[in-house]
């Protein structure tokens, strides 16, 4: 048994690609090994900004023998076909066997593949794996045709202690031969070649100041950060898990030898709003920040250098502080200027110059529409008059900060700056909060707005966007969704669902389209119908999808406590792997253990969004998924009842205008019990506790079974038959009120 080391030494690969690349590369190597009949014990992936590597242990030194039965043409096939087959397998006609197949007799070739030494087939395996690593973006280098995230420098391939003899074809006559020599840290290493083999790889690189294990670098940085926080008597912000982890991952991907250093934020800038400081520090400088005394930003930052500098890092800290100083000086200038001008901004004159979309007018136009739509939402949610006034006020200034200097400089602070400036100007805090929150959910992991004032504005903004684009015929197609309309739709659905709003989404769409009728020519009913399908399909898709549907989503909906995480995976993958990546090609890689709701359940429940019961429907679909046995039993009962009713209808029985004859009904206790049981349904339906609906179904089903076991429906007594048929018809109709049982599969 022997070990294999493959290292791709490159120029700096973008941090956001590394995690995926590491995963794909090791996966592709194992896939190729398996395809060549090579077993192994374990594969360990490594990655740094300059390296992608794997060490595979327990490989045989020689491939196992392999016998392949290859099917040839039928014995009746023309001579040509047979000759072609003989040529392809390199055998004579006498060598072939004739075997029976379902399609008649055919020739078979038994091919003995001669086992080859593993080291001889490795180049094929290594090159295929390297070539198939998918990149969000890739490039060519010099006159080569080979594409990779950044230029390759070396390929280290060592089997045991032997260099694998091979080369990667780079196109145009260029190639890169395998070697056993790598390089250490760009600045701390001595620049000389380092001979490595699988056993020495990690330790030799460590001696040359490269921590090649991603997780070890992460652990090191994380540990240091915690120690620093402790020493400074600080803590991390509560969003540490998300934001800082994202930053941590990025930083781990930027360094081979992490050294955590601490600097100070100049006192004079500490008066800037926290979000401004944090954006500058985290997003622009990739610094870690701390909090102290509750939720206050501490005047320190930590930066992760890629070098243990000869002066102990003094110059590095000084340089970083200087850059930060310049950035914050700019921010301070912008902030003071904006505070001074806020009252001018809120007149929205500047927004008349910002085009929202050439066909949909300016942002000022959009603001007017948002106000109208938000008002409708508020009214439909039965808000009091003064609350409606506040919603309108919030709508009016929700985008005023777009003309501010700060947002011009830091677009990601849109909304947030508006909030600060409004608060500063003495605006009621929930209206100010609404300016920031109306953009929510900004992404998958972001929560939805929850305050009374924010939700209508948030829905209005998104619905206006969606309807506007729909009215001019711009819709997402395939992987193209340049205006992020899918996310927009999901945003609306999430706000409604997670707040359990009794809101008819389509009524709002109707209002939103109404405001476009003066400026655009479109057929409102057609657009509305089309939009309803789109929104409904988005919802269904989210509920069905295996890869984006998680258990926490269920919990969120049912408990209505935490944000829906439905979008999360979509977003994470988009972040790291952009369009064009053949994700579907590697389902094995995405070990999604979560399960979507059965598509037939979803389809049976969510038939339209044109009412106020969206939340109820989603919880019901969830409930069904969690009680598939009960649903299956109910389905069987429904089918039996429906079968009888449908047969009767075919025989001329008319279900219309039939009334239950209670006297007749009461004569049979099973019929009576069934009749009583279906009365419970309506009560259950008003209760969002899904379990009750399912229990009710089960109960009806028991009565139904008793009924079938003990009652003959098709009797000669027409009154009796009519009563029973009417009863069964009622049962099927009640079932269908809950879900379309015709759609549900057995």
């Amino acid at each position, binding site marked *: 048994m022997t070990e294999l080391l493959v290292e791709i030494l490159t*120029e*700096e690969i*973008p*941090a*956001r690609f590394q995690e995926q690349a590491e995963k794909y590369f090791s996966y592709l190597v194992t896939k190729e090994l398996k395809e060549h009949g090579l077993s192994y014990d374990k594969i360990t992936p490594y990655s740094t*900004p300059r390296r992608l590597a794997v060490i595979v242990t327990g490989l045989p030194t020689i491939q196992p023998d392999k016998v392949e039965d290859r099917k040839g043409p039928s014995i009746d096939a023309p001579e040509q076909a047979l000759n072609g087959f003989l040529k392809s397998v390199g055998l004579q006609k006498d060598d072939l066997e004739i075997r029976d197949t379902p399609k008649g007799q055919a020739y078979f070739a038994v091919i003995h593949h001669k086992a080859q030494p593993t080291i001889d087939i490795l180049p094929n395996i290594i090159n295929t794996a390297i070539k198939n690593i998918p990149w969000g*973006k*890739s*490039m*060519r*280098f*010099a*006159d080569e045709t080979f594409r990779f*995230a*950044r*230029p390759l*420098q070396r390929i280290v391939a060592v089997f045991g202690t032997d260099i694998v003899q091979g080369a990667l074809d780079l196109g145009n006559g260029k190639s890169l031969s395998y070697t056993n020599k790598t390089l250490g840290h*760009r*600045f*701390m290493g001595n620049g000389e070649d380092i001979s490595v083999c699988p056993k020495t790889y990690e330790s030799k690189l460590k001696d040359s100041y490269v921590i090649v294990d991603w997780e070890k670098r992460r652990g090191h940085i994380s540990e240091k950060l915690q120690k620093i926080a402790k020493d400074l008597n600080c803590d991390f912000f509560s969003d540490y898990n998300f934001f800082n982890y994202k930053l941590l991952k990025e930083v781990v991907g*930027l*360094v081979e030898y992490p050294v955590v250093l601490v600097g100070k934020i100049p006192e004079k800038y500490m008066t800037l709003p926290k979000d401004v400081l944090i954006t500058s520090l985290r997003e622009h*400088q990739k610094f870690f920040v701390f909090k102290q005394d509750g939720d206050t930003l501490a005047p320190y930052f930590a*930066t992760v*250098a*890629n*070098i243990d*500098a*000869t*002066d102990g890092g003094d*110059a*590095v800290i*000084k*340089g*970083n502080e*200087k*850059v*930060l*100083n*310049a950035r914050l*000086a700019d921010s301070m200038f912008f902030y003071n200027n904006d505070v001074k001008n806020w009252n001018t901004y809120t007149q929205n004159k500047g927004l008349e*110059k*910002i*085009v929202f979309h*050439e066909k949909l007018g300016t942002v000022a136009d959009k603001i007017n529409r948002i106000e109208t739509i938000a008002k409708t939402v508020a009214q439909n949610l039965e808000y009091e008059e003064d609350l409606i006034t506040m919603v309108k006020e919030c709508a009016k200034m929700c985008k005023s900060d777009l003309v501010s200097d700060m947002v011009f400089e830091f677009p990601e602070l849109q909304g947030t700056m508006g909030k600060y400036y409004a608060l500063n100007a003495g605006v009621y805090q929930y209206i100010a909060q609404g300016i920031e929150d109306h953009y929510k959910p900004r992404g998958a992991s972001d929560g939805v707005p929850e305050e009374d004032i924010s939700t209508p504005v948030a829905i209005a903004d998104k619905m206006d966007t969606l309807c506007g684009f729909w009215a001019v015929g711009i819709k997402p197609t395939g992987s193209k969704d340049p205006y992020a309309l899918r996310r927009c739709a999901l945003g609306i659905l999430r706000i409604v669902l997670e707040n359990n709003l009794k809101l008819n989404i389509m009524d709002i769409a109707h209002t939103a389209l109404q405001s476009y009728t003066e400026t655009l020519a479109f057929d409102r009913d057609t657009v509305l119908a089309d939009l309803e399908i789109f929104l409904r399909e988005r919802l269904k898709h989210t509920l069905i999808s295996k890869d984006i549907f998680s258990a926490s989503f269920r919990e969120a909906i049912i408990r209505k406590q935490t944000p829906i995480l439905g979008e999360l995976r979509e977003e994470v993958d988009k972040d790291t792997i952009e369009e064009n990546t053949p994700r579907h090609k590697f389902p094995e890689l995405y070990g999604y253990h979560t399960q979507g709701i059965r598509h037939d359940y979803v389809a049976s429940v969510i038939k339209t969004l044109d009412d106020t019961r969206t939340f109820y429907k989603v919880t019901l679909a969830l409930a069904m998924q969690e009680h598939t046995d009960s649903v299956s039993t109910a389905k069987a009962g429904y089918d039996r009842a429906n079968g009888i009713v449908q047969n009767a209808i075919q025989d001329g029985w008319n279900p219309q205008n039939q009334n239950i004859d209670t006297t007749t009904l009461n004569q049979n206790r099973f019929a009576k019990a069934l009749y009583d049981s279906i009365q419970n349904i309506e009560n259950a339906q008003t209760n969002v506790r899904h379990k009750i609906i399912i229990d009710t179904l089960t109960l009806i089903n028991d009565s139904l079974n008793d009924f079938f076991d003990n009652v003959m429906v098709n009797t000669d007594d027409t009154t009796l038959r009519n009563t029973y048929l009417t009863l069964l018809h009622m049962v099927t109709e009640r079932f269908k009120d809950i879900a379309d049982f015709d759609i549900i599969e057995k």
Partner: protein
Amino acid sequence: MTPCTFQDMILRLHTYWANEGCVILQPYDMQVGAGTFHWATTLRCLGGDDWKCAYVQPCRRPTDGRYGQNPNRLQHYYQYQVMLKPSPRESQDLYLASLQSIGIDVKKHDIRFVEDDWESPTLGASGLGWEVWIDGMEASQFTYFQQMGGYDCEPVSTELTYGLERLAMFVQDVDTVYDLKFNHTMSYGDVYRRAEIEHSTYNFEVANTDMLLQHFKDAENESARALERNLTHPAYEHCLNASHIFNVLDARGVISPTERESYIARVRDLAKACCTQYIENLAHTADVCDDTSVEQYRNHLQKKT
């Protein structure tokens, strides 16, 4: 060791890149927004011939003017530009050694290659690469050109762009650009501050917009006319004129967002046409070296009209 002056830094970079076989060019005598616009980069990155050059390019960004009051922002500043075609395997090492040549100790500072892909809608160009950070400061742009004028670069070139003022501020450890030592007696402020104030005032307040709007049209037409006569370089210069005039108009705030798009598109169309023509004429210009071939090329240009 005293840190090198601004002009010394340029001289050292010249020496360094000259030793690496670059043609040391002088700045393009055109008003441009970035070193990339120099014909030596934009046009010469097209075609299969080898090409290595380095030059300083004064850059004009009218909207960045701050009346000489901002420590970092200027409407006129310098880029040091290096073009290496085809991209050499040791591009990164060459770049890092150039930093050492201007006195940056790579063992004392934190130098990082941070992903930053470059795109110029005006030139129909794009490339992959990094911005190079030194202790958190963006010091240079490092790009492998993939496309120019909508054409695939074959071969790919390495483009290095140093922000000279930033680098000098870093090397000299000063907080404002005007305090830079230009040489041992003059500061950057002594040399440029007055002009900076005047240009800012002109760009934001004074420039005659009617005249400039007319000049834009004239430059655009002249570029198209030169293209018709198959004269790529003159056409390209008029295209750059149009581009700069547009930038001044933008600073004057007379271009609405919708118009903005269309102006950019007009410049881009010209730039692309120049690239197309440059490529088309490559076959005829490969050996313009003696009198006979010059005559032949002139004949070729005649034929096209």
